[in-house]
């Protein structure tokens, strides 16, 4: 084994192989920086080049890409508060406040070193674990997987915010959104309302961008200023490294957590950052400042998300079961290279496995190094007035969103969830709780049904189930003790929130809660149309949600001013009363404009119209700047679309006229 390990390293350390790895790492870094684009898009970019490549070089390139996406996605999370990919949503909670306090350098360096440490940890675990992993992975049956989904849901306790009823209601909305589409047990289509788009459910990338990116863009656009005032980066490169060193055990624990969650097939890694964040909040005792810029809130998710990639390689290579969309593409790449995953990956093909592991470790070092070097130029972006940056972000986010099914419907879904996201942010509904519910809904439902089918209720007596059950209970107890709110602040459950003491001022939040109750009622009515197995999950969730709202709405209506359920950023937020604050809906209106134009003339033509109008109208840019920026954005999107060989979503115009690409 040691021989194989060393010879794999020797095979990798040739100029040509390292060059290909660097290529993969570079593409991965660029893709990671762009919000919403992740491993699937990155790997699809490289796929056409695999043809005729040498195995080791090709694997080094692919792994290089996969490994560094959770490193570079930190940039936009920390600098703009917009998650760079679904792996670093939790980084926003503390990374962005740090950046606004002028500590971006500290946050970024801590994030990069944590990413590197997490990635290397993942590789080390893989090295030893890969040989004995089969029986361990096989010990997670449907029953245990169901319990793990519950364990993930238990993080809602810590992320529920000031009002538990509100937090649980948000989680229920997530569970409902996650159950749209085909029911796992019967294949019945739930809550599709006659729309073919909803048959497959709403894709993760749309939910992530709608709830986390759009509200942030809308917020930043209102302020009409650069994101960072004064020195964008601040000093403190070494502070970040020191912070990581002081919290090395937290980093190691989160890396371990990430690795395990990645390694268990079927769980998927999309909430690993939230679980790590929740874990940090639950366990940190000394002076917690979560949500206000606690560096540990950056270290925890960043250590976990890179380690997760290492873990996720295990089921992919040993069983041919991809744990995520990106791993599915990676698996396709392996097959194209003529490598069939299976038990031989730890037998005859162990050298391939080890070269993958070494690539993983090296790529993480490369990625963190390059990111540290690039941090200063990239963070200059935060000194640009945001209204000049906004059209790029809006176009990039729409571009990322329609990767899902490449149709206009993706953009419409993005916009609708964006509206919901903006309102949830305004009224203090915890979006992380919603996201966890959304991601884990299909897993919880599927594995519960399967566990019952395979074992009957006796599945509850399985040792693994009992152990994970106890962990879940502990997590709920710790979580409720250290609850953090929508913005990550650790909150005492006291009724002393800043508030405006009139009933009329509370009407908007009461209205929103009532609307959410309407949504729940809609889900409930829809569920009644289905067979028992198809209805039981959405029915139960919508009833729980309605109960939570039945608790919340009277609290909102009758609670004393300052009651912990009350929250409306339009009454008490930092921006209230300041000069030059735009309308809450301004940013959304622009995004809606782009979507509307797309429906008329197709995405690419819409972009060419949207960009100059936005720059002239909103950013008051001069004609040269407008021309340069429009050409730059149009060119970049064109190259990216060409490299991904995709057609843009088409509009009414394309139904009538036959236009050449990219207007097709």
């Amino acid at each position, binding site marked *: 084994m040691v021989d194989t390990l060393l010879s794999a390293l020797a095979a990798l350390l040739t100029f040509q192989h390292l060059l290909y790895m660097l290529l993969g790492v570079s593409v991965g870094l660029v893709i990671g920086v762009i919000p919403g684009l992740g491993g*699937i898009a990155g*790997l*699809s970019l490289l*796929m*056409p080049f*695999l*043809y*005729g490549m040498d195995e080791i070089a090709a694997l080094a390139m692919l792994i290089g890409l996969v490994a560094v996406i959770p490193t570079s996605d930190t940039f936009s999370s920390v600098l703009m508060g917009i998650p760079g990919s679904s792996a670093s949503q939790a980084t926003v909670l503390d990374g962005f406040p740090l950046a606004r306090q002028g500590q971006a350098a500290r946050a970024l360096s801590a994030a990069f070193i944590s990413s590197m440490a997490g990635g290397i940890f993942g590789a080390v675990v893989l090295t030893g674990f890969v040989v004995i992993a089969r029986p361990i*992975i*096989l010990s997670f*049956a*449907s029953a245990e997987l169901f319990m793990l989904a519950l364990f993930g849901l238990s993080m809602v306790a810590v992320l529920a915010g000031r009002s538990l009823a509100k937090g649980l209601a948000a989680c229920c909305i997530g569970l409902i959104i996650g159950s749209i589409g*085909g029911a*796992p*047990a*019967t*294949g*019945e*289509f739930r809550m599709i309302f006659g729309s*073919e*788009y909803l*048959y*497959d459910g709403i894709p993760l990338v749309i939910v992530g961008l709608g709830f986390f990116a759009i509200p942030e863009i809308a917020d930043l656009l209102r302020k009409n200023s650069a994101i960072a005032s004064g020195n964008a980066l601040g000093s403190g490169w070494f502070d970040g490294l020191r912070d990581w060193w002081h919290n090395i055990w937290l980093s190691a624990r989160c890396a371990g957590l990430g690795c395990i969650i990645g390694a268990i*097939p*079927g769980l998927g890694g999309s909430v690993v950052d939230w679980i790590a964040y929740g874990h940090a909040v639950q366990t940190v005792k000394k002076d917690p400042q979560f949500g206000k810029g606690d560096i540990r809130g950056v270290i925890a998710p960043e250590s976990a998300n890179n380690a997760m990639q290492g873990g996720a390689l295990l089921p992919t290579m040993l*069983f*041919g*079961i*991809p744990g995520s*969309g990106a*791993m*599915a*593409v*990676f*698996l*396709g790449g392996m*097959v*194209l*290279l*003529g*490598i*069939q*995953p*299976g*038990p*031989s990956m730890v037998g005859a093909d162990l050298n391939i496995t080890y070269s993958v592991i070494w690539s993983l470790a090296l790529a993480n070092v490369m990625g963190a190094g390059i990111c540290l070097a690039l941090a200063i130029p990239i963070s200059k972006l935060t000194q640009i007035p945001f209204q000049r940056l906004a059209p790029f972000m809006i176009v990039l986010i729409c571009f990322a969103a329609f990767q899902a*099914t*490449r*149709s206009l419907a993706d953009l419409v879904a993005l916009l609708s969830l964006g509206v919901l996201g903006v309102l949830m942010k305004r009224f203090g509904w915890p979006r992380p709780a919603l996201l966890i519910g959304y991601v884990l809904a299909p897993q919880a439902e*599927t594995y519960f*049904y*399967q566990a019952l*089918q*395979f074992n009957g209720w006796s599945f509850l007596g399985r040792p693994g189930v009992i152990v994970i059950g106890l962990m879940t209970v502990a997590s709920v107890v710790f979580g409720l003790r250290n609850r953090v709110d929508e913005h990550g602040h650790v909150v005492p459950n006291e009724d002393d929130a800043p508030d405006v003491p009139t009933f009329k001022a509370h009407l908007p939040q009461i209205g929103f809660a009532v609307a959410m109750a309407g949504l729940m009622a809609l889900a409930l009515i829809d569920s009644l149309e289905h*067979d028992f*197995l*198809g209805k039981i999950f959405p029915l139960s969730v919508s009833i729980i949600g309605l109960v939570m709202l039945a608790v919340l709405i009277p609290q909102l209506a009758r609670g004393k001013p300052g009651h912990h359920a009350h929250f409306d950023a339009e009454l008490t937020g930092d921006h209230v009363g300041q000069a030059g604050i735009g309308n809450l809906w301004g940013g959304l209106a622009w995004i809606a404009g782009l979507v509307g134009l797309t429906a008329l003339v197709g995405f690419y033509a819409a972009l060419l119209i949207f960009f100059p109008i936005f720059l002239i109208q909103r950013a008051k840019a001069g004609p040269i700047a407008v021309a340069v920026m429009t050409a730059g954005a149009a060119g970049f999107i064109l190259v990216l679309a060409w490299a991904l*060989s*995709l*057609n843009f979503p088409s509009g009414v115009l394309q139904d009538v006229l036959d236009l050449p690409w990219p207007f097709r």
Partner: protein
Amino acid sequence: MKTITRRVALGVAAGAVALGLAWPAAAEADFAGKTIEWIIPFSAGGGSDTWARFNAPLLSKYLPGNPVVVVVNEPGGGSTKGTNLFAARAKPDGLTILGTSGSTQFPYLLGDPRVRYEYKDWKIAMAGPTGGAVYASPSLGLTGPQDIAKLKDKELVYASQGATSLDLVPLLGFRLMGFNVQHVFGFKGRGDGRLAFERGEVNIDYQTSSAYLKNVQPLVDAGQAVPLFSWGVLNEAGEVVRDPTFPDLPSFAEAYETLTGKAPSGPEYDAYFAFFTAGFPAQKMVFLPNGTPDDIVAAYQKAFEDMKADPDYQANAEAVLGTYEQVTGPLAQALFEKGTTIAPELRKQVVEMLGAEYGVKLGE
């Protein structure tokens, strides 16, 4: 005598005319400087995408004029979205082709309301067969394919991806054999199902050939799995015969005969046979749109034939395609017709059975 000679002469003349027309026409198809879009109605990663990405560079190499061939993923609606798009938009110039899979054929055969495409409009360029083998747990008390009758009174459990997915073939097949199978749905792929088998949650499973050879054969060698039968392949006459990948395993038809003493027949078998063909021998197909000139179709068929001798094809074909040759011409045409045709009463029978027994609703 004289008449015959004249007939022969006429025949030769007609043949010469036909050839004369055919040859220059074939030479006309030239894609130099063009880009061909290969629509794959599935997302990146996964079987169909990998299959297309394997073929695309080879197609580019062997089509006249060496056009660029790009794989365009148009996922959604269980592959109906991208296929509808192709049906509505593609022009008969050979620059847009479609790759379908069993998951595209099944909704069409079942009459899914999302289907707005008609296979019979299209011209087939190539068909890529696949196959697989069924195996069971030794805990059921059997030691080899000859013991299949022992399964008759056992409670079998199968990990299914859904009643309208490719796992409809085993569902119909097991029913035909009279097995008592509990289908547990919600699995993400056959690999996921194999994992459930290895965990002991299910006791009967099948894998496609390459996955079987790589992952199940070691289990068989270790005494943890017992092979039962292969789904079989179609011969030139359209009959189910042994899969050359598994020469020692009986085909589905043989296994049925061992169980019942007679060859399979009747409407239930016909329904099974339609879905089996669409799911295995005609699983992957490449189509050109309605009205595509014959010379373009011929150019594609020739390219798919020529690429088989390419060293790159031979090096990786087994990992991507399994052990089956991609076919063109009359054989592909035959597979195409068999894999996309079902009698209305058989469709009704299957849809009603799925609705009554598994709660499947296909929409309005």
